[in-house]
């Protein structure tokens, strides 16, 4: 039985898979840009959780260092993303992704 801190590794995998799926569904179904941002963050944090669980299981610091990389990059990504969102709001006065339909087939 593979365990981390007394809890089976499988549970960690299922939990982060569930979080990841919630994130994916949120990105696909929600219309509000801020919520979509949050769902993308949720996807990344599901990955972080999984990496930390595996790193702890293998007693290997590499996985935990990777989590720091993801957190740093995600912060940079959100900084850029929110700047684009502000630009979007200045141009259209809306943050609903329905306004993103000027470019089409």
């Amino acid at each position, binding site marked *: 039985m593979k365990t981390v801190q007394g809890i089976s590794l499988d549970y960690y995998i299922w939990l982060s898979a569930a979080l990841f799926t919630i994130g994916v569904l949120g990105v696909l179904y929600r219309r509000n840009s801020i919520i979509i941002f949050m769902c993308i963050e949720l996807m990344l944090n599901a990955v972080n959780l999984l990496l930390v669980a595996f790193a702890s299981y293998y007693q290997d610091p*590499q996985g935990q260092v990777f989590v720091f990389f993801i957190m740093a990059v995600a912060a940079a990504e959100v900084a*850029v993303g929110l700047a684009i969102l502000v*630009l979007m709001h200045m141009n259209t006065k809306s943050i609903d992704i329905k306004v993103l339909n000027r470019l089409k087939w």
Partner: protein
Amino acid sequence: MNALYIICGLGIISLLAEIFNFKKALFPIVMVGLVVAIAVAFLDGGNASQAFSNMINFDRVAIVFTMLISITAFSWFWMAKDYFSNNSHLTDRFAIVLFSLVGAIILTSINNMVMLFLGIEILSISMYVLAGSNKKNLFSTEAAFKYFLMGSFATGFLLMGIALIYGATGTFELLKISAFISAHSSDLPSFFYTGVIMVLIGMSFKISAVPFHFWAPDVYDGSPTPVTAFMSTIVKTAAFAALVRLFNGCFAEISSTWLIIFSVIAAITLVLANITAVYQTNVKRMLAYSSVGHAGYLLIAVVSSGNIQGVILYYLFGYSFASLLAFAVITRLEEKNESLTIEKFNGLFSRSPFLTFSMTVALLSLAGIPPLAGFFGKYLLLSLAVGSGHIWLVMIAIATSTIGVYYYFKIILAMYFKKSALSQIDLSQSLKILLVLLLLISIVAGIFPDLFLSLL
């Protein structure tokens, strides 16, 4: 390796230019710096070197791809000179472009999943900013926003894949992962395969293969034209370099998992992209679909066996320079805030024969007409596919490239046989030299393909 440091240094110099006020000199400095980077990469030759505790591996393939990226970047800067003039954010633009080149070069030399992630993110985050760099234009903002949403969504998949692969193998290093695969080929956990598929999905987003291509036409259309040129050449080159390293290098042993998926993706990419391109009236959008289609051709090489890297390098070389040539013409023709429809090309021959000739060569090369680089790229690629027994893919590729000829010729016919009442177009000296240079590259590379194939 040193080329990477040089380009990184150039990016920092660009940031300093704002403080120490040498903005005017920045363009020459960057151009000279890129030439030095190309020369350094060339002198490095076959000397493989590792860096950052073996996280990146500058072997021969990486060096040759670095050279390709640097040469493309050099021509791109030349082409995009106007993009960098008379602008209050000039130094930022230089810095962002140069740092995205750093990301591209990292992607050519990845030896570790961490570097794959960082390279893709350095490249993508820079591209999100550049796509939205025309702040007053709503299309540009919309393109940036779409690119950002889709890009980070894809990154999520890629990261989940990396995490699952790490969970199965206990390492991020590509060499150790492939060693683990060969040692445990029969008892790999099922989530390892899920991880590989997720990495595949993430990478398909980045190379804009169907069905993960829907962002590409919008983003290519909405972004400022020089940025579109950058995305369809350098970003694609880097993404394919990384893809080949991952799948043909690290995951080669489990090719039964991904080979069929990539074959199907290649087939639907070819069919859908080329057929949709026929219905486009906007030239930038048509080139976007053609760029998606070329990703399909390149995927055929990925699923084949043999000198994959050499063929992909040559194909990307021909494709990148033909695209740059086409985008150089488009940048010259484009007027402010107006989409460039095919009608705008009407009677171009009477307005500027040289521009028409350049565009014709570019389109013929993209369509794959001999003796241009695009033809031999396609020829080598398809013969590789025949050699590996993918006859059905070759048939689809030939059929779709015939469709390709149709929509490329729509522009060529408009240029030569339609009338226009508009006045002559004056070309600046620097644009003329650039066009001659790009034309020469397209033709010489087509006549002497061995020059490039022997590099790898």
